[in-house]
C-alpha cells in the first residue's frame, strides 16, 4: 500500500471525485426539500428543484407583471454594469496609486499608512456618509465597490512594485530612463499580471459590496431582487439567483485568467525571472 500522499487518481476518477460533493449536496437538498414539503405543502424554505427551474424560466423568459421587464436579464445587466464600473475604476486607481507608492519613496511615505488604515475601515459602517456624499443613485453603489476593493489593490500592487528586483530599476536608469519612463515602460507592464490576479481575488468582495449596496437602496439588480423577495422567503427566486451570481463570478474569473494569459504571455511562461 503506497502512502496516501502518493496515490494519484487518474483522469476519470478525478472527474468523478470532483463531481461527488456536488452530487451529494444536490441529493441532500432534494431529500430535505421533499421532506419539508411532506410536512407542509406550502413550505417555501427548500422549494423542489422543479419549482426553482420553473421560477427561473419565468424570470428569464416572461416579462414581469409590474414592470414589464425580463427580471433576470434586467437585474443582471444592472448589476454587471455597476460591477464593471466599480472594478474598472478600482483597477485604474489601484494601478496609479500602487505604482506611485511602490516606486516613489515620497509617495510611499505619504500614502502608505493612509492606505493601510483605509483598508481597515469596514465600508458598510460608513454607508450613511456615502449616501449623503454620493447620493442614492448608481454612483454610491459604484463608490461602495471602489471603497471596498481599492485599498487592497493598492496595497497589493505597491508591494509588487517594491518586491521588483532593484536591479531592474537600476538597469532601466542606466538605459537612460526617467522616473516617468521607468513607471510606464518597466514597472507598469510588469505589475499588470498582478493586477489581473488582484482583480480575480476581488471578484468575490466586489460582488459582496454590490449586493450590500443593492440591498440597501436600489430598484433593480441581483442583490435588490434577493433582498426584496427575502420578505416572502421566496427561496425559489433566491437560490437560483445565488447560483447565477456564483456562475457569473466564475465566468468572470475565468475570463480574467484567459485575458491575462493572452495579453501577458511572458508572465505565465515557466521560469520567468
Amino acid at each position, binding site marked *: 500500500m503506497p502512502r496516501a500522499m502518493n496515490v494519484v487518481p487518474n483522469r476519470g476518477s478525478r472527474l468523478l471525485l470532483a463531481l461527488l460533493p456536488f452530487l451529494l449536496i444536490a441529493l441532500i437538498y432534494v431529500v430535505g426539500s421533499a421532506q419539508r414539503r411532506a410536512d407542509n405543502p406550502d413550505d417555501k424554505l427548500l422549494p423542489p428543484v422543479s419549482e426553482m427551474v420553473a421560477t427561473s424560466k419565468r424570470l428569464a423568459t416572461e416579462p414581469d407583471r409590474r414592470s414589464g421587464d425580463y427580471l433576470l436579464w434586467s437585474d443582471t445587466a444592472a448589476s454587471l454594469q455597476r460591477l464593471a464600473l466599480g472594478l474598472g475604476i478600482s483597477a485604474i486607481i489601484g494601478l496609479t496609486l500602487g505604482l506611485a507608492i511602490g516606486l516613489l519613496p515620497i509617495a510611499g511615505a505619504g500614502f502608505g499608512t493612509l492606505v493601510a488604515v483605509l483598508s481597515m475601515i469596514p465600508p458598510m459602517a460608513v454607508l450613511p456618509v456615502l449616501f449623503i456624499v454620493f447620493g442614492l443613485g448608481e454612483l454610491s453603489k459604484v463608490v461602495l465597490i471602489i471603497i471596498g476593493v481599492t485599498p487592497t489593490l493598492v496595497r497589493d500592487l505597491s508591494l509588487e512594485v517594491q518586491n521588483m528586483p532593484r536591479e531592474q530599476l537600476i538597469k532601466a536608469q*542606466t*538605459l537612460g530612463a526617467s522616473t516617468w519612463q521607468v513607471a*510606464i*515602460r518597466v514597472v507598469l507592464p510588469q505589475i499588470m499580471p498582478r493586477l489581473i490576479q488582484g482583480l480575480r481575488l476581488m471578484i468575490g468582495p466586489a460582488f459582496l459590496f454590490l449586493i450590500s449596496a443593492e440591498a440597501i437602496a436600489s430598484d433593480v439588480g441581483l442583490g435588490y431582487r434577493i433582498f426584496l423577495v427575502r420578505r416572502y422567503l421566496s427561496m425559489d427566486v433566491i437560490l437560483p439567483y445565488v447560483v447565477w451570481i456564483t456562475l457569473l463570478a466564475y465566468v468572470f474569473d475565468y475570463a480574467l485568467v484567459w485575458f491575462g494569459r493572452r495579453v501577458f504571455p511572458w*508572465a505565465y511562461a515557466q521560469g*520567468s525571472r
Partner: protein
Amino acid sequence: MSTLSFRNVWVEYGNQVVLERINLEIASGTFLSIVGPSGAGKSTFLRLILGQEKPSQGAVLLDGQPFPAEPGPDRGIVFQRYSVFPHLTVLGNVLLGYELAASPFTARLFGSERKDAVEKSRALIEAVGLGPHADKYPSALSGGMQQRLAIAQALAKQPRVLLLDEPFGALDPGTRAQMHALIKPLWHEHKTTIVMVTHDIKEAFGLATRLIALDRPRKDPQAPERFGARITYDLDLTRDSAVPVLGFIRASVHVAQ
C-alpha cells in the same frame, strides 16, 4: 578620455567600515577585474561608480568630474541575475534603450525612427548571437542567452563605462566559456572601459587587462567590522607575465582568524 579616479574613498555604514582608503585610477579602455572574498565590498565598489552609493569620504571622478549621484546612460551594468526585462522580447529589450532616449513622454518609437532603431538593435542582437531568438521572451532563453541579451542591451547605449557584477556566476562552465569568447571581441570593438567583479580567478585572469583584489588586510576577530577592505593586489595583465602595479601590499598587520 573617461578615466575613472578614486581619490581616498571610504564607505561606511554606521559603525561598519566597508571600504577604506581606496585610491585608484582606471584608464580608458581598461578591462578591470575585481576579485575578493564575499562581503569584501566588490559590489559596493561598483555601486560607487554607478552613482547608487556616495562615498562617506573622498570622491569618485569620471574624467576629473564628479558624476551625478544616480545611475545614467553613460554607465551600463550587467548583473548576475534580473538583468533583462521579462515582459519584453529580446528585440524589445534592446530597443528599449533607443526608445527611452528618443521619446521622453511615451518612450515608444514609430515609423521610420522605429525602423532605424530596430535595425540597430537587430545588429547588436546578431552580434551577441541571438539573431534567431529576437522575438522570444527572456523566459524562453537559457541563463547564458539572457546574459548575452543583457550585454547587447547595455552596449546599445554605448556607455563609457560598462560594469559587470559577477555576470557569469550563475552559468555552467560550458556556457561560461562561450561568454568569454563573446565578451573579449565586443570589448575590443567598442573600446569601453569594463569593470568586472568575479569569483572565478581563471575568468579574471583570462579576460582582464588589469586585476585588483579587495580584501581586509587587518582582521580583528573582536570587532570585524572596524576595518574596511582595501586593494590588496593590483596586477597589470597586459605584460607577458602578470606584474603587480602597486606591488604586494598585503602582509603588514594581520591578526590571525
